[in-house]
């Protein structure tokens, strides 16, 4: 696995500056949580990395610029809304197969789809199912499997649990942790929920108005936040003041 490094990245849409000089490193085999409000530029940063938004600056993968053309895409992304990120006309097996590197035989491709479905704890026999037959949590697992099908060095997860019911969110988070530990993935985990980031990420970066205002090891940042905004975010976590630890 390689490290993902953002160096002084700027993204502008017309007059608006969405990302304003972000430098951030996702170390090899680590999960970095990126927190901030909507509009802080965290999703835009992710889209720039995978080539969906034009940017200035440098985004490097293992020291090389991230390829955003051609078949090989070592940087993969999982989207927020599992109801929109899967083509309703394609079976989930086809969606996963589409992201796999070309050149494998049909049988090998089918075996790989089955392996990936098993990896995300879905019944391989359901490869022919349409997304509409699946629950939100199952769809998000298919989306994870599709991201892994590209044999990525780094995965970017953009608010992957915020469209899910709380009862399903736990299962997806468990899966993320398990996959990360098993495959040693490097991961940029974007969320507005500090409790969720605390659970999956070893490092955390706090973003506001297109800038990173604080970053460091999760435990340290959450225990002793240095920036006022980080403190504000922490104070706003529901239950942080009234509920006792279980």
């Amino acid at each position, binding site marked *: 696995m390689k490290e993902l490094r953002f160096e002084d990245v700027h993204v502008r849409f017309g007059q608006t500056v969405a990302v304003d000089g972000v430098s951030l490193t996702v170390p090899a085999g680590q999960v970095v949580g990126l927190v901030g*409000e909507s509009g802080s530029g965290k999703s835009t940063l992710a889209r720039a990395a995978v080539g969906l938004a034009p940017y200035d600056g440098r985004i490097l993968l293992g020291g090389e610029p991230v390829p955003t053309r051609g078949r090989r895409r070592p*940087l993969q992304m999982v989207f*927020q809304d599992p109801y929109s990120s*899967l*083509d309703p006309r394609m079976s989930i097996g086809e969606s996963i197969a589409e992201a796999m590197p070309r050149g494998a035989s049909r049988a090998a491709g089918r075996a790989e789809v089955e392996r990936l479905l098993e990896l995300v704890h879905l*019944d391989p026999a359901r490869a022919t199912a349409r997304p509409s037959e699946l629950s939100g949590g199952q769809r998000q697992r298919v989306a994870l499997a599709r991201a892994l099908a590209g044999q990525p060095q780094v995965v970017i997860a953009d608010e992957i649990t915020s469209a899910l019911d*709380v009862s399903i969110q736990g299962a997806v988070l468990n899966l993320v942790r398990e996959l990360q530990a098993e495959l040693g993935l490097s991961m940029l985990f974007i969320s507005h929920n500090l409790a969720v980031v605390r659970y999956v990420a070893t490092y955390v970066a706090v973003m506001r108005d297109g800038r990173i205002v604080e970053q460091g090891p999760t435990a340290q940042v959450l225990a002793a936040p240095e920036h006022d905004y980080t403190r504000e975010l922490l104070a706003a976590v*529901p239950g942080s*003041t009234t*509920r006792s630890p279980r």
Partner: protein
Amino acid sequence: MSRLKSVIRTPVGLTATILTVGVLLLAVVAPILWSDDADAIDTANILAGPSADHWAGTDNLGRDIFFRTLVATRLSVELALAATAIAVVIGLLLGTASFVLGRRSGRLVNAGVNIAVAFPGMLLALFFAVVFGVGATGAVFAIGLAGAPAMGRLTRTLVASVSSRDFVDAARVAGVGRVRILFRHVLPNISEPLVVNATIGAGGALLSFAGLSFLGLGVQQPSYDWGRLLFDGIGSIYVNPAAALAPGLAVVVAGLAFNLFGESVAKVLGVGVVAGIQLPSSAPAVETTSPVDVAHHDADDIVLDVRDLEVTFPGPAGPIRPVRGVSFAVRRGEAVGVVGESGSGKSLTALAVSRLVGDPGRVDASRLELLGHDLRAADSKALRKLLGTSLAMVFQDPMTSFNPTKRMGGQLAEVARHHQGMDRRSALARAVDRMRAVRITDPEHRAHQYPHEFSGGMRQRAMIGMGLMGSPALIVADEPTTALDVTVQQQVLDLLASIRAADDVALVLISHDVAVVGQVCDRVLVMYAGKIVEDLPAADLAATARHPYTRALVAAVPDMHTDLDRPLAVIPGRPVDPADVPSGCAYAARCPLATDRCRTQEPPLETDSAGRRVACWHAGEPLPIEILDRELAEVDTQ
């Protein structure tokens, strides 16, 4: 296929389908069966009127016009379809250009299409007829090219709507090329509206052809289509009107057939997209049971009293009941939280209380009272005033809760003018005052702004302010902070708490987030499959909840103290579908404590000495340890 069936089910759809199939069938068989009849020259009967031998008379060579009209079906339909095909192909090329070529070159193409669309189609057709020369080929190109810009613009709009979906981005990130994405992801997802519009376009092309041929710019002798027959027949219209009427009728019938067929399919497809979404509408559908009665309520401080509330919607296989008998009371100044997964019926409960369950939903209850007034009564001015002034409703999405074309202050003031009869000036003054009360900075200035100039948190405050225009005894907030950022969420929750403290207002807070409810509320109702399964003080949520579902919900949400070395607890299975509620306890299939009794006998909601309620045969029993460690045992393969 099921959609096609529902096309046939409507009378118009059935007629259109029969007509279309008939026209197409005729186009295939008529020339085979009747070519000889149509070309037979009967010199004894030149320019004759209708007779037993010639139903629509004969032309100047004595040929039978009825048979000629039938045989002309093929050429007319062929030409129309050919022109439509040209329009669709060129339209597709133009419409997908901006997707394939990228933004800059696409913009040029779009500008060209926009200009072309502005020209009247018939004018373009005449122009092309001059360019390509007079004749069938020229006419086909003329009509095809004239239809292309409109098709192109439609395609572009459809492509734009699909290409903004995440699955297109996902394919791009996976390294799939643009052209491949176009054919695999975009075109299949826009094919239905395109086909429908092409069908309608074919009807239009048919009419245009008749027009061109009639003007002498289309099909030339000796071949003939309906327009040509019309052109020939019109000359002798005073001698034999049927000679012009027969092809004219054919044009009308075929044109109608294509257009109606396309429209009916479009209607079914359109409805198919919207079906299943229940929008709260302002038309209440409460059955009249008894007039407003004020007399009976047990305690003076009860604001809201709900007994045996049921909400029913008609479904394809019998009525669906998402709320199945909910009873609770809210006292003055009390904050009651309602939690549950999506589909548990929590939002519908709130809508029923505010009389916002729209058609075709039905609300039944043995008691539904706000401040002692029966909410089941028929709609009346008094009841509307009661709801308008005593009940405040806060919705999840503050953007859709306001009229985007009216100023904020005016929208708030409207409440006071309508329900309290205030004049314009004092109503606006109250609106500004209320905006200040919900801590909107610079309310005098803000009152003159439009909703889009407010941030999400600001709009949610304004929504709460709107509820405070009267003197509400109850605020019903349905996921008021779900669409907001955490810091803003905290501010809105603080605001609700301070309003409650200041005026002793009761609050019903609906949320899927146990942590939010636990922080704000005194008491929590946990709903599952349309019923209350547990009713307990919020302080007891974390430690002493007794229903296994409540305990699982609390454990499934990570908070700032969650043990990082253990996987999160998960609830196996999936929520109950309201259309298919199992017998016995609805939660049994997902419950680690479930026994045979749970699967057959539904547990009643029982009240204990402390006033807590729970519906479970195994309430409070220790959960088997492995449920907490049950790593990813989510067996939700149905």
